[in-house]
């Protein structure tokens, strides 16, 4: 017989167990502690991926649970690592179930969740003949521990008697209404191996048969099974709660590891056990799979549990525009956090296109003596007849200049969003707003500016900007009126973009009155420039370059009063710009729009958020000039 310490044994057990789990990304180390306060047994730390085990609990399992040390430690370690490998694995599942549990099980929510997590962790393990043996033995030993539960202390007995309760009866009832025993009994039924639970009580058997009707292996019914499981055991928890007087509840009962609150294997896993980064990832996963209302309920739950805020709203921009207070445009800036997070889970590919930009160009101008440390490529060996002579050979001096050239770049984005009454209110989860956010976020990440036009009958503009929060704010704003796209105003807007020398340009303007107010603030020459214009699109010079630099997006449900005018406008842009129309929740109009044969225009029907996945903007082959060469202003 070998004598060994728990620490020495842990060094042998840890790699063996991890090998059985096919070596997950967990460091093979068991953190042994003399006693774990408030937990008593063991737990898996999701922040460090370490398992903590109480040596006191191990000793109890060996002494009273009649287990051999290797099996006890391996069983516990397998259970704890199982939380990482089998269930819950990550916090999204835990968050979702947690918020469901809160509304269904009230004060028992945490207990139900803890038992559920342990059950889902154990089942795949104990059903394996060989590798599950340690876990089965662990629960067998644990049941023995419960059976041999020590009696109440004299002080506790006195408290019970004061409440007219018979201590022996109370102990018996505690064992009768033990969820741990119920679950061990369930494992016993599933494995057909005697784990030592032999209870003939009718109530106990009824609960067991209820659990036996659920298929915990059916992942498609996971949520439903969770609620049914919780309802079945909540009844037991309620009965158990009423056994002890209030002063002895919450650990006051002190009747050993098995009879207190919590589960067999230590404390319930909390959301707070995860890092902020893991929680953010979990929320991303939920926002992608669930609707807006559900996501908000889960987020609220997570924030309540952790006491932290998980909104991703970017800081408010300091920019000021002409006030929108007098208009009917309703800002929904509180919705930015939701759409920002949701849009972050959608990728998008933007084809670069040749646009006129200011580029820098290097050219040699003069020379000077080459010194140690100068870039070797600047060295001019011809200055010394092809030889390199220290302190004599010269180097070229490079100068840089700016030139206008046509280069492949990601253009700026101009997102024209319909926020008329027929569109979904951003507060209720709008595919249109989501599309806008996806576009804004991806163009911004590619270094482009993002501008916005939010229209109903009135129109609000945001000049192309790198202030992403301003763009988001404009996407969330909602007019809730009729639908008519004011094409002359759009043209004015594009001309204003072209005249970027208007330094005092406000960030946005909306109604006629505000527009007039804006005009009034300009000099007479500038006013004339804005007011006297031909409604035909004049694609020359700077205006043309401006249009070329912009990808236009129209997000609408299609019910536009002046649709002919809009189509005409898009047609006239077709030579120089790329247009994309997102047709929201109106796939029946898709045919009408496609039959309008808009050149250089992509039409994307969006009926559900998943239609916005895997977008690629800009069909490159259609915008390259016919002669297959990039038209260059530099080389003429």
């Amino acid at each position: 017989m070998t004598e060994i310490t728990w620490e020495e044994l842990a060094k042998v057990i840890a790699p063996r167990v991890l090998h059985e789990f096919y070596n997950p990304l967990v460091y093979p180390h068991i953190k042994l502690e003399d006693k774990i306060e408030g937990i008593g047994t063991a737990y898996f730390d999701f922040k460090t991926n370490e398992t903590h085990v109480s040596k006191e609990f191990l000793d109890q399992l060996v002494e009273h649970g009649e287990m051999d040390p290797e099996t006890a430690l391996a069983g516990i370690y397998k259970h704890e690592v199982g939380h990482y490998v089998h269930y819950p694995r990550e916090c999204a599942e835990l968050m979702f179930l947690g918020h469901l549990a809160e509304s269904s099980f009230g004060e028992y929510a945490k207990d139900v969740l803890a038992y559920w997590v342990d059950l889902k962790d154990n089942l795949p393990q104990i059903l394996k003949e060989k590798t599950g043996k340690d876990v089965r033995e662990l629960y067998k030993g644990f049941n023995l521990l419960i059976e041999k539960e020590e009696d109440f202390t004299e002080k506790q007995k006195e408290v019970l008697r004061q409440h007219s309760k018979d201590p022996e009866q109370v102990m018996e009832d505690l064992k009768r209404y033990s969820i741990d025993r119920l679950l061990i009994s369930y494992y016993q039924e599933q494995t057909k191996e005697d784990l030592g639970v032999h209870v003939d009580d009718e109530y106990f058997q009824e609960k067991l048969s209820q659990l036996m009707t659920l298929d915990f292996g059916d992942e498609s019914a996971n949520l439903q099974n969770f609620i049914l499981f919780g309802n079945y055991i909540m009844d037991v928890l309620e009965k158990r709660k009423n056994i002890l007087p209030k002063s002895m509840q919450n650990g006051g009962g002190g009747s050993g590891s098995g009879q207190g609150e919590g589960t067999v294997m230590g404390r319930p896993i909390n959301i707070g056990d995860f890092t902020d980064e893991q929680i953010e990832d979990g929320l991303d996963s939920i926002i992608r799979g669930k609707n807006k209302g559900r996501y908000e309920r889960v987020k609220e739950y997570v924030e309540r549990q952790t006491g932290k805020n998980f909104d991703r709203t970017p800081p408010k921009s300091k920019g000021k525009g002409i006030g929108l207070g007098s208009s009917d445009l309703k800002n929904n800036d509180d919705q930015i956090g939701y759409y920002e997070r949701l849009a972050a889970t959608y990728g998008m590919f933007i084809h670069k296109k040749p646009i006129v930009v200011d580029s820098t160009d290097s050219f040699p101008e003069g020379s000077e003596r080459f010194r140690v440390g100068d870039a070797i490529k600047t060295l001019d060996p011809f200055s010394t007849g092809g030889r390199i002579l220290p302190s004599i050979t010269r180097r070229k001096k490079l100068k840089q200049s700016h030139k206008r050239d046509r280069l492949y770049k990601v253009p700026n984005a101009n997102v024209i969003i319909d926020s008329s009454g027929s569109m979904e209110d951003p507060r209720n989860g709008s595919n249109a707003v989501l599309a806008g956010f996806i576009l804004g976020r991806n163009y911004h990440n590619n270094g482009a500016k993002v501008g916005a036009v939010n229209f109903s009958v009135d129109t609000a503009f945001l000049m192309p900007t790198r202030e992403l929060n301003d763009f988001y704010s404009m996407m969330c704003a909602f007019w809730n009126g009729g639908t008519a796209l004011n094409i002359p105003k759009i043209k004015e807007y594009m001309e204003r973009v072209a005249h970027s020398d208007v330094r005092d340009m406000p960030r946005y303007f909306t109604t006629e009155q505000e527009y007039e107010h804006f005009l009034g603030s300009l000099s007479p020459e500038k006013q004339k420039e804005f007011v006297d214009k031909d409604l035909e699109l004049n694609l020359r010079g700077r205006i043309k370059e401006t249009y070329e630099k912009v990808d236009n997006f129209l997000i609408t449900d299609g019910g536009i009063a002046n649709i002919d005018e809009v189509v005409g406008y898009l047609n006239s842009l077709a030579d120089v710009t790329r247009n994309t129309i997102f047709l929201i929740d109106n796939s029946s109009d898709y045919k009408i729009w496609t039959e309008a044969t808009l050149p250089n225009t992509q039409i994307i029907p969006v009926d559900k958020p998943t239609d916005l996945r895997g977008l690629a903007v800009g069909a490159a082959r259609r915008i390259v000039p016919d002669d297959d060469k990039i038209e260059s202003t530099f080389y003429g």
Partner: protein
Amino acid sequence: MKKIKLKKKSLEDSLSGHTTQVEERKVIEVVGNNKVTEYLRVAEEYFDYFKRGFKVSLIAFQLRETVGALTSEEAALFLDASKVFMDERNYAEIFSGFFKEVIHGSRDAGYREFEFDLQGFGQHNPFGNIWGNVNNDESERTKITFRNVSNSINLLRGCHYLDVVVKGDVGYGFGFGAKNSLHHIEGNAEGAMGNSSSQSKFIVDGNIDYSFGYNSSQSYFDLRGNVSSHYLAKQAKDSTFRIGGDLVGDYWVGDFNAQNCKFISPNENVIEYLLNHLFFGHGHKIYRELEDGKLQEVSK
């Protein structure tokens, strides 16, 4: 450091872990039929069936024939578990049609007492029209107890022969168009309660907000808390209004179209107000409730 004694290993134990092997695991054994699980499975499919125009009554009938009707407890459990469908588009509208068939099946199977907890459903609970115009006579009378319905709106419209107990508050529009039904609200009630009801009884233990009993007939309103009402008893006919607490706020009792209503109160301030403000000549009567419960008419 404390030492532990290890048992001697068998040859098999010594070798285990040193050889690579893929181990199959047993399948989870399911014993017996869980009706709720079956109903949930069909309910989930029903969200698709609904879009394709399937008749819910036929689906529910088949379900009852093959699985059996749900007991009262199972119906409550089914409702609770249906929260997992709340992400479906038009959840309340679609699921309420299905749930209506489910609990009517249970009623037909002889289950006449239900208890539902609406915690977590918010305004999306499926109980808007669930009992509307269904019970046709006294023999089909059914009792439903609700918990956590405070933020629901238009709960139970058009109920016939129904006994309702609400543990807590109710939201706006409760019990619209009720007939031959009894409602006991053990909390506060928001506005528009019992509008267009007939031969029904409403007991509110807490306070009540504006506009209740509008267009009611032969109904009884026992309002035990304070009443801050606009348009109390407007267009009501032959209905009785007992006000246990105070009449507070800006209110307008009855109107030219209200007729033959009785107003009862143990509160002298209320009686005085009614005497001064009620439209007379419409057959209304005012009673003082004495300490022994007897009524003393004080109408002018």
